[in-house]
């Protein structure tokens, strides 16, 4: 067996998996607060990466500044998403909210297409251009940073959900939003925080992804769906599950690219989604809600 190829497949899987993990975390946060699947999640990644790239190119600001501004912008978009969904007080079921998120995703993508003039945008790596050589395989230095970001995001959110008052509220929303409201905590407030956090994490993923490839208005949709498959794999709503699911999905895709029929690599995520829903819908590490009727 070719160890070089094996290590390369693992590295590639971790590199892409870290991004999936961050996307999956975002799905979980919104799901816990609203019970809905937020299809804008992938577009947050696109907006984060694309706006950072545009700021960097157009105004020549330092990379870090561009990324921070992009995260702020995307977080704002998260808040706007919540207002667009719940601000009219007409959508009450998770199913109708989910459908409406798709409409918002289409709007965001359509606007991004016009604003970016359909161009692609790149971002340099924060750790410099070189690559890491590991046992005959190689990956961008950015991969290391992305893995670190994914782990830190998951750790921070886990602490946040367990140790802070707001976090506990958000977690409580997952199990029983009605009781929560009788305690005077508004559903809107928790939802808004959830969307803001999800968008910020998504933007982080975008800023981490941009140096590995380039971003265009079209970069978010498929990534979002794959991130959702990762979330399901680990257990929807469970941050540690999101990390595990993301990395597993990344490695599974890389194995298909490296050893299997490479053209079918992107089918993997959806087969995984179907399989996990059929065999173990609570995900590998468990989820926060009942999944079967």
């Amino acid at each position: 067996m070719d160890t070089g190829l094996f290590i390369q497949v693992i590295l590639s899987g971790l590199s892409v998996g870290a991004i999936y993990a961050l996307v999956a975390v975002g799905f979980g946060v919104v799901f816990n607060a609203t019970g809905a699947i937020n299809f804008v999640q992938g577009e947050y990644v696109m907006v984060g990466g694309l706006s950072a790239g545009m700021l960097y190119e157009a105004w020549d600001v330092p990379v870090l500044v561009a990324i921070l501004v992009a995260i702020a912008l995307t977080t704002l978009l998260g808040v706007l998403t919540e207002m667009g969904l719940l601000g009219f007080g007409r959508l009450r079921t998770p199913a109708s909210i989910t459908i409406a998120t798709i409409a918002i995703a289409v709007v965001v993508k359509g606007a991004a297409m016009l604003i970016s003039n359909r161009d692609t945008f790149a971002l340099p790596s924060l750790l410099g251009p070189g690559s890491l050589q590991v046992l005959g395989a190689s990956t961008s230095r950015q991969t290391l940073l992305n893995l670190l970001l994914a782990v830190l995001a998951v750790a921070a959110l886990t602490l946040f959900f367990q140790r802070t008052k707001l976090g506990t509220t958000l977690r409580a929303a997952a199990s029983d939003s009605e009781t929560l409201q009788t305690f005077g905590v508004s559903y809107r407030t928790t939802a808004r925080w959830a969307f803001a956090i999800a968008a910020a994490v998504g933007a982080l993923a975008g800023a981490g992804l941009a140096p590995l490839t380039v971003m265009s208005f079209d970069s978010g949709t498929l990534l979002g769906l794959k991130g959702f498959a990762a979330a399901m794999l680990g257990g929807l709503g469970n941050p540690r599950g999101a990390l595990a699911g993301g990395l597993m999905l990344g490695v599974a895709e890389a194995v298909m690219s490296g050893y299997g029929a490479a053209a079918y690599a992107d089918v993997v995520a959806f087969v995984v989604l179907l399989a996990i829903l059929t065999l173990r819908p609570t995900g590998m590490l468990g989820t926060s809600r009942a999944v079967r009727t």
Partner: protein
Amino acid sequence: MMSRLAGPARTMSRRATWELWITLGLLVVLPMLAATDYALHIWTRMAIFLILLTGLNFIQGVAGMTSLAQAGFFGLGAYAAGIATVRHDVPPVLALALAPVLVTLVALLIGVLSMRLKEIYFTMATLGAGFVLYLLFGRMVELTGGPNGLVGIPPFSVGGVEFTEPIMKYGLAAVLAAIGAIAAHNLLVSRTGRALRAYGASEPAALAVGASPFRLRLLAFGLSGFYAGVAGALEAFDSRFVSPSTFDFMTAVLLVVALVVSGAGRMIGPILGALLLTGIEVFAADYADYEPLIMGIVFLVAVQLFPRGVAGELAARREDRRERAKRSADLAADVAVDAPTTLKAVQR
């Protein structure tokens, strides 16, 4: 209990019959309004959408579950008909009959795997299934022609008569759409249909009348697949070309949204949804750069305005009005009996 149900059930079936007549009437009237080749082409697409949405209505409207697999099933029907005629010289009539059977089987298989899941999980499972189908259309190059598409599909023909004229293509699609609508109507007012409806509204109700929710849902999903198979085969013979792009995620979403905003669960929903889809397709074409943006905004507004569908919303409003009328009548009665209370209410 049974006698209390009988009243609303009869009203419901009378309303469904009315809506069926409107649907059938439109299928006849529309081509009279405009019968140029292009208009007939548009009406044919509308009829295909109508079949797709009538099928989707079983699962979305009646069983109350959102399926994002309908575009994939649509594609499977189109590819099945296309591949059968192009690669195996199957007569088009036979292909049109076989495609829905194949799609139904696939739908039942996916249904068996995912039907016990809660609503949102079921939706995501259908998303996965639809996406796998879509990706396979593009990847199985030897069989499907890959992303370049499947070329050389013959026109539909019966006994040597080729359906190449736009009016004949429309006739075929409209007749099948009409049969589909009538069958859907008859099924919905039948006993199974009532059980399905009861289940859509509440699970205990279904259990109370001794129906198996799992089997009812599976039936609904299988039917949605069957209709998608018919629509797919028609699409293949209409365009005489099939490529993956027609059956992507967006198509799946648009179908659901169109049905939801028109009135899922109602007989009138599919035809309104089909008109909406064709209307948007025709109009968006004039705004090349802003098309996705317009599409997204229109759907967001529609979903916000009509979360229960146009038809459902109107019904709900009437209900509200009736309730308000009833409440004010009650209030008037209260006033007559207990004036001081009303005074207090006013002061408050």
